[in-house]
């Protein structure tokens, strides 16, 4: 392919296929998809995908020159160079979970790591600071430990506190970057039992150098909860919850988000606060923005059967159905539409769709209580709005998604995307901001630690069994199985 006709070649099916071959991860995703889509879509899945992408690329190009309806805008990430970001203080936050294996994987402890660095600083002692916030899950009284996502609410809470702590402790912080979404789909975490005051004290133990600050934060939440949140969230039991000092996990998280924003707004310039997601499975951008606009455009031209004709079906009438049937995700489609160094337009990500009424069991009670988490959709009271965009870092990796708070200004997404791209360029094989990789390694709970915990737990269980402290026959049987399913270990030998 010559350079002269490179642009045209990019707009042909061959060009699309060649691009796919250069992007092994996209190819692998498509291969996976080809196995899970309906049988009549499998045969020509690659060919039709190539045709669709070719048409889409053409359409985006035409829209850019005003010859067609706008689809999505893709722009180059300009000005991404290290000279421009010298002297900036950046903090990266990531949480790690330590799991032990007894009969299955059991999360046992969690730690959030922070890595703060000032670019251009030559003095190592001044340049970098590391912090970590450990939480042993067994110490917590609240949360629904039987739920698989119990670990997630603990991690998200700890990460938010880590971020807030970094922001408060660093007056000149330019960027606070989280590993993962800036905000998860919060509706998924509704229904967990509230945390107790002891739990919150555990969370806050590493939060502030001065214990008074931690106490102030806790009391501020309880005051806001008493006045504004709990009466709507838990009508009828709100007073009880305040008296018992119970912290609804979602309300507590929403409060922490508000604290982050409020602290950021006090600064000038406003620090950038962002989350960066790798290997995302989101399809919202494709459904609500990209394909929605395509369908509108097709309908305008009475070509609404374009996809049905292309794939030989009759049911591909909405973006949602199309994505269901063809298993495309944002990452797959954007990888095929963007080139390295480009970013997609941003959109408001709907993180709150699952927030509705439901039930929870308050700590210390047996029966369920009705709750209404939909009140946390209010961006002033509950969770703030999140804006996101996709960035293509290199041919070898999936696009990453950058998320920022919409309320912190228009510049946030542009500046966050620029830095996320710049930081990712240092590890193109991973295609992810290197600072988050550092925080990830730092936060990782080492295997020796979890192994040691595992051995201790097994040892204590074995001793209990030996001493006959566990009487229940069925329980004894299960424990023996759980312990000795793994390799025999010298720690299990009877004490001399």
């Amino acid at each position, binding site marked *: 392919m010559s350079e002269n006709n490179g642009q045209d070649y990019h707009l042909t099916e061959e060009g699309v296929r060649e691009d796919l071959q250069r992007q092994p991860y996209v190819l692998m995703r498509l291969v996976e998809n080809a196995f899970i889509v309906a049988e009549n879509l499998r045969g020509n899945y690659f060919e039709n995908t190539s045709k669709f992408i070719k048409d889409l690329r053409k359409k985006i190009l035409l829209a850019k020159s005003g010859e067609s309806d706008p689809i999505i805008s893709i722009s180059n990430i300009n000005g991404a160079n290290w000279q421009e970001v010298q002297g900036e203080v950046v903090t990266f936050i990531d949480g790690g979970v330590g799991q032990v294996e007894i009969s299955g994987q059991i999360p046992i402890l969690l730690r959030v790591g922070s890595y703060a*660095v000032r*670019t251009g600083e030559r003095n190592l002692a001044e*340049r970098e600071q590391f912090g970590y916030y450990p939480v042993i899950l067994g110490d917590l009284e609240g949360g629904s430990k039987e739920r698989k996502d119990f670990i997630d609410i603990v991690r998200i809470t700890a990460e938010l506190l880590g971020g807030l702590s970094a922001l408060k402790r660093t007056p000149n912080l330019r960027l606070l970057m989280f590993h993962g979404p800036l905000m998860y789909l919060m509706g998924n975490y509704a229904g967990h039992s509230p945390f107790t005051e002891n739990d919150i004290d555990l969370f806050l133990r590493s939060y502030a150098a001065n214990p008074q600050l931690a106490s102030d934060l806790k009391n501020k939440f309880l005051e806001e909860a008493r006045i504004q949140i709990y009466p709507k969230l838990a009508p009828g039991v709100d007073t009880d919850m305040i008296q018992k000092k119970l912290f609804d996990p979602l309300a507590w998280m929403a409060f922490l988000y508000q604290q982050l924003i409020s602290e950021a707004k006090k600064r000038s310039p406003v620090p950038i606060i962002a989350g960066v997601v790798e290997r995302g499975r989101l399809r919202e951008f494709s459904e609500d923005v990209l394909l929605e606009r395509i369908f509108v455009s097709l309908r305008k031209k009475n070509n609404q059967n374009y996809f049905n004709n292309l794939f030989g079906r009759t049911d591909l009438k909405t973006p949602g159905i199309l994505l269901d049937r063809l298993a495309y995700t944002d990452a797959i489609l954007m990888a095929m539409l963007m080139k390295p160094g480009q970013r997609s337009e941003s959109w408001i990500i709907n993180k709150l769709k699952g927030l509705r009424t439901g039930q929870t069991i308050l700590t210390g009670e047996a029966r369920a209580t009705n709750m209404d988490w939909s009140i946390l959709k209010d961006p002033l009271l509950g969770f703030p709005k999140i804006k996101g965009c996709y960035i293509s870092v290199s041919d070898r990796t999936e696009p990453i998604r950058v998320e920022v708070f919409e309320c912190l200004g228009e510049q946030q997404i542009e500046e966050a995307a620029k830095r996320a791209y710049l930081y990712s360029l*240092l590890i193109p094989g991973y295609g992810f901001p290197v600072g988050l990789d550092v925080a990830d390694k730092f936060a990782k709970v080492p295997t020796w630690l979890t192994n040691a915990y595992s051995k201790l737990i097994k040892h204590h269980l074995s001793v209990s069994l030996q001493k006959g402290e566990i009487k229940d026959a069925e329980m004894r049987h299960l424990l023996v199985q759980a312990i000795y399913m793994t390799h025999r270990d010298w720690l299990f030998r009877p004490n001399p």
Partner: protein
Amino acid sequence: MPQIATEELPEKLEKQSFVGTLVGESTSRTFRLAVAHETIREQDIIAVDVDLKSTEQNSIKQKTRLWAKVQQIERINPLFPVEAGHELAETRTSPFDTVLSLSREMVTAVCQVLGSEPIDGSAGGRLDHVRYPPQPASQAYMPNSTDLERVVIGELGTKQSRALDIATLSNRPSVTVKVDGHAIVSRHLAILAMTGAGKSVTARRIVEQLAERNYPIVIFDPHGDYTGLADVEKLKGKVQRYYAEFPVFEEESETVAKVVDTLGYELTPTMQGVFDDVFYAAKQFFIEDGGERKRREQWLALLLRRDTIEQYGIKQDMWLVGYLAEAGERIVQMKADNEGDWQQLETQLQEWGWARIDTYSRTDKRTIEGIKKRVFKAAAALKRMETTNKKVARSANPLPINRLELVKYGQISVISLAGYTGNFQATIYTIIANSIFEAKVRDELKLPVVLLLEEAHNFVPGKALTTAEERSIAITKQIAQEGRKFGVGLIMVSQRPSRLDETALSMCNSYIIMRMINPADQNFVRRVIESLGEDEAKMLPDLDVGEAILSGQLINFPVLVRIKKSESQGEREEEDAFVALENAQKGLEMEQTKQNGNSRRS
């Protein structure tokens, strides 16, 4: 979980002496140490206090100090991806300008266990084998100089009379390293290094130390490296320098014929047949009786019309072979021409030893003439070598006829071999070494002796290409193998160890190894010297001038040292080439000025 009883906790260490903590898997041979930045260096010797039972059954735990050497230090920043390094290089970006983490480094030292001793040092520096690994999380520390000196010297501490003070620890200059002189003189030593690494200085330091103890030393010095020994104040009167003359008549005629060949004047097969007669005749012609010898000199001078023969006399050298050839040629010519009293001359020569002179005809005359020409040329070449040799030796003393005079109590005999080609050097060495060794075997020589071979690869090459080399290898191997029994030691000094004979080198029980860049030499040394560890071998190209690894019986364990300066200097101490040029030019200019002054006056 195993508990550490309070009384078992290690003594609180001084902060400045603490170097690290044992991590990971430890064995009785090696362990790993997590260390703080730059607290230790490779080849440092450190200690760990441990509670271990002795090997005896039912013994109780006792405080033991375990000694170890830092073999390798690994430094890694686990938060700095390799890929990022490539990107920085590609974009010419300083890592400090990015968000990369540069501060979190892990430094781990891999340590080799040397042995253990009672914590109070009561074993006198003797280290026992360790049969049980030290406890993980033990603290390692830098021992004080006194303790360190004690274990480096080992049992030698109690035998100071044989301790030679030759070095200091490379990483701890305050710690003196003494080596076992007994091991050196009785079980042979090899000093191996590339040119300029300091091997001759090392050898001289050892010689000086041995001389202080009056040990007889015979040095074979091909380059004048040891001439400076005589200038050392405390060695005054102890050093005897000799120039070497090639002992022609101690060789077989065949060998001497080859010498003539080697010097570039090839004898034809016909000549070789006759050479034997000529050589034998010359050998017989020279006699010790002064009066009779004078008579023969007169006879020869008259026959050959060479007044110089009568004037300077004859010696047992190549010239005499040439004179005899010329005499033979002349008598055969006279006989052919029936000139003068050829019969009397022929009979005289027959009487003096040339029995077959009467069998030669006119045709043989040309052969004898060819021998004469070649032998004279070879004699001239040999003379040139001898002259150079004398000059370098800075001595008027020829080698004593009785070689055993080289070995005297408190004497260093330096035999200059400078100026001679390899074969001559090897031959001279072989003759002397043979005489000394045989005398020791026959018990005719009572004193022990150590022979020092500078440029040993010329005397004991791995592969002999000439007869001279074959013989020098044979005697060296014999001394290496049996010398200990008869009190003959060897010190082999070489800059090309890979060219040395493997057996001879492996018979050395002590080694001083210095900077070595040539990979062939490194590999050879690694293969032959069992006591040299893999990590030590890897250090060889990076050693400084004067730095050395001591290994083998001369030391308690292999150790990196800096050799102390010798008091003497060698002939070859290198002068800056450009300084030498300027000095030479100044000399020429002064000479020119002087000449001009003289011509004006005249």
